[in-house]
């Protein structure tokens, strides 16, 4: 009963004219950046952070959340029509979506991806409304050792799920932790690694670092290659899948939705990995696995449902535990912090309107996205014809504004450019940027919890394994780190 009362309270927030407006803005921007290759949700959310400074926190979160899950809807369009994923989470959609378009079935492919995303998004929001409050009240029992282990697990998941090498991910996480220590030490008040630069006393600002790592570096990467966008010309008549299509893929949509929901809940889990796993599951259980990769509609329905469900459920660790699971959610974490709101178990008690308002806005946002994506598909395809140079120059200018706006200092713009170069080189060398930004955000929490735990235990590190929850979380974290090493060792033994 409480659940319904809370949800009604959430709808009263989400249905206010301004919040409806911001949900619509988020959905439109999200779809647009999902459609346009070369600008992902983390960069967009980072770029739009300055816009949210003067907004109500609930409206800001509603808009930024809309961008995140909206991008999942839009990302499939380029995968299906261009064979270029607009979004990393839509990579797997290229395999069958583009083949369907080549076979003259672009309409049903786009249709099932939008409808599947809607169904998955709705299921995931419903699951979130049920799970989040219980998880938040459970997390209230967490002490410093549990928090230390949870943050460590979140970081290890982000490292494990990064596409590149685990060691490089770990190195980036360590670098992020170090960057997070720059400035005044929150416990002792000592200045660390500022090199006499007074501008560094507050440390590196997340907004500045994120804009450089995600915004500027993305532009630099895209400038390397000549722009080729061969939009596949096809008819968009008959967007609704046929009865045969429905018969084939309704179960795939449901499986993708539940799989995506559970993967998204895990700290570090997210849309990209869920889409790959759901595709693999569908192929394995299909009676016609040979059709996968040749235009099987299940190969579009399941990953699209999964990535949407995961993008929604990845808000759960943020809103209930205060742990951002991926780079976009980390940016939303920063947006909340800018407004003086600390995400975590107390968020539900202290800001129930924001908590339930954001959840309710996701129900509304999914309906908006369905309305935006199906009838307006022609418009989104036309957006693909906008030359990249206009997008690139807008991104650069907004990055400059965003970095400058943090402290009204050109120093921050210079810092952003430096992190842009660093992000560019990192991507070229296969060093994932997401663990770095997550570690930078989580670093202070990790430092505080490790110090508090050690002080309370008299310097005995066994406190982390004596507490059952902490021990369980550490076991999972260790499993994630050591699995690839063990796999390699077993592989070698098998070869010899």
């Amino acid at each position, binding site marked *: 009963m409480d659940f319904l009362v809370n949800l009604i309270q959430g709808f009263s927030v989400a249905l206010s004219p301004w919040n409806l407006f911001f949900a619509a803005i988020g959905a439109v921007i999200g779809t647009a950046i999902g459609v346009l290759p070369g600008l992902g949700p983390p960069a967009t959310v980072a770029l739009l952070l300055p816009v949210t400074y003067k907004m109500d926190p609930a409206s800001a979160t509603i808009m930024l959340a809309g961008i995140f899950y909206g991008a999942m809807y839009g990302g499939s369009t380029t995968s299906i029509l261009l064979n270029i994923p607009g979004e990393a989470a839509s990579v797997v959609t290229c395999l069958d979506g583009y083949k369907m378009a080549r076979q003259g079935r672009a309409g049903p492919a786009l249709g099932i991806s939008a409808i599947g995303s809607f169904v998955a998004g709705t299921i995931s929001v419903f699951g979130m409304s049920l799970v989040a409050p219980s998880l938040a009240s459970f997390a209230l029992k967490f002490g410093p050792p549990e928090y230390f282990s949870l943050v460590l697990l979140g970081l290890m998941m982000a490292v494990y799920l990064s596409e590149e090498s685990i060691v490089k991910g*770990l190195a980036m996480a360590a*670098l992020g932790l170090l960057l997070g220590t720059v400035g005044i030490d929150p416990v002792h008040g000592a200045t660390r690694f500022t090199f006499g630069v007074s501008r560094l006393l507050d440390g590196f600002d997340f907004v500045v670092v994120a804009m450089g790592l995600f915004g500027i570096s993305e532009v630099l*990467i895209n400038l390397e290659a*000549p722009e080729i966008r061969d939009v596949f010309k096809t008819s968009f008549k008959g967007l609704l899948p046929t009865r045969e299509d429905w018969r084939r893929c309704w179960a795939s949509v449901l499986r993708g939705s539940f799989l995506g929901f559970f993967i998204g809940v895990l700290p570090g889990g997210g849309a990209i990995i869920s889409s790959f796993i759901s595709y693999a599951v569908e192929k394995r259980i299909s009676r016609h696995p040979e059709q996968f990769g040749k235009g099987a509609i299940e190969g579009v329905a399941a990953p699209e449902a999964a990535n949407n469900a995961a993008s929604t459920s990845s808000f759960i660790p943020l809103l209930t535990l205060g742990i951002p699971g991926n780079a976009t959610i980390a940016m939303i974490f920063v947006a909340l912090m800018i407004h003086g709101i600390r995400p975590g178990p107390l968020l539900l008690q202290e800001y129930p309107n924001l908590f339930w308002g954001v959840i309710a806005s996701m129900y509304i946002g999914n309906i908006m996205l369905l309305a935006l994506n199906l009838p307006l598909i022609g418009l989104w395809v036309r957006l693909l014809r906008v030359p990249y140079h206009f997008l690139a120059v807008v991104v*650069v200018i907004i990055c400059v*504004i965003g970095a400058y706006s943090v402290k009204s200092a050109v120093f921050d*713009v210079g810092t952003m450019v430096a992190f842009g170069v660093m992000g560019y080189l990192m991507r070229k060398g296969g060093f994932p940027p997401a663990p770095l930004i997550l570690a930078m955000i989580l670093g202070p929490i990790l430092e505080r919890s490790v110090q508090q735990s050690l002080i309370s235990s008299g310097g005995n590190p066994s406190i982390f394994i004596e507490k059952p929850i902490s021990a369980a979380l550490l076991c999972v974290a260790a499993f994630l780190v050591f699995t690839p090493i063990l796999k390699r060792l077993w592989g070698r033994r098998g070869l010899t």
Partner: protein
Amino acid sequence: MKNRIDAVGSLFLFLIGLGAAIGAIHLKVGSPTEPQPGFFPFLGGLSLIVFSTIIFLKGRTGQSQKKVVFGDVGRPALLLVVMVVLVGVLDCLGYVIGTFIASGLILRILNVKSWRVLLLTSLCLSIGTYILFDKLLGIELPVGILVRLGL
């Protein structure tokens, strides 16, 4: 050395880790019972040293599979030059003039050949974003030499 970028990257990370560890010792590391300001950076620095060494060794033995391909680096390099110059002149020229010139140059780097498109786009972007962010959203942007015009 089979993977040069891994060697350079790991060396860079190793030096950062080493610098952080030394800096942390200067800050005082303390002990687990009484952690000092350098405690956490020391652990971070040590971790970075360990991971960068593994990356270096993996790159040396050819275990790293990432093959780095640089495309046409001319355009990214030129964009960086424009951005560095913009950082240098933003305060004195101000946002509108600074970004007008920078966007014009960026569009030129991006092969926009029509001067009319280039000038019009730069003008719309610099003035449009100034009105949107400074006047409507209240984000204070540098006025620079336009302050003489009473802006």
